[in-house]
């Protein structure tokens, strides 16, 4: 089930984490979601990964694919 993806999601103690799917720890923590997304985009591009941006409730707010053969995206 674990695939090459990066996630931006809210930290239960405040702020926003960027974390690779299946990883035990966040790769980086930010105060704002905007900063977290900026960093996560760079990481996802470098790793040719999919990027999921979660809302504070955990639901997917935005998804972008930087994989070699991206699937068509739906808004």
């Amino acid at each position, binding site marked *: *089930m*674990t695939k090459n*993806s990066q*996630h931006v*999601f*809210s*930290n*239960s*103690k405040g702020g926003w*984490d960027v*974390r690779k*799917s*299946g990883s*035990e720890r*966040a790769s980086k923590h930010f105060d704002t979601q905007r900063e977290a997304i900026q960093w996560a985009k760079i990481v996802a591009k470098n790793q040719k990964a999919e990027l*999921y941006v*979660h809302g*504070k*409730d*955990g*639901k*997917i707010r935005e*998804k972008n694919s930087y994989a070699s053969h991206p*699937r068509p995206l*739906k808004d």
Partner: protein
Amino acid sequence: MDNFDKNVFVNCPFDDDYRQLLLSVIFTVKYLGYIPRLSLERADSGESRIEKILGLINESKFGIHDLSRIMSSDKDEHFRMNMPFELGIDYGAKALKGGEWATKQLLVLEKERYRYQKALSDLSGSDIKNHDDEPSKIVKVVRDWLVATENIRRDSGHKIWSRFNEFNAYLYDQAVEIDGHESVDELQVIEVVRHMEDWLMHKD
């Protein structure tokens, strides 16, 4: 009785604005290896609603009762009494039925700290936790309660919250990109629970 020691009666609202909190509770219970029991699961039977509820309470050692939506939000809206009523039945089963029901463990949830006291002062002194309408908080509250009650070692609330987020990505892919739903909100709760089972089975 089958799975009495693993069954968790989830007495929470099914409102749209509570949906993500409900899914967070269900996910946390399943993640910890317990079985969430909801009145929705018996929707096809010919039982009356109260019979369904009594059956679930009878079959469950644990009960999670969220009173955060008992207040009416509009001036023409009535107070919503189902959840405190069902909490009362569960409490009564624990206090009066004896046998294994005396071991029942109940978690009462509220939105804000101490707010319940104005409406349900009989609960003063009981263990009531607030979640501030935040899924990340409700995950931790449910996890901490179940782990302390059962005296078991499990992943942290933060880790379960991270996993819940990953599950939401999986759900989006399955429901929207593969199955053609406009949004994950189109799925019935029971369908989401089925996706949780698939995800949890293959998460590692």
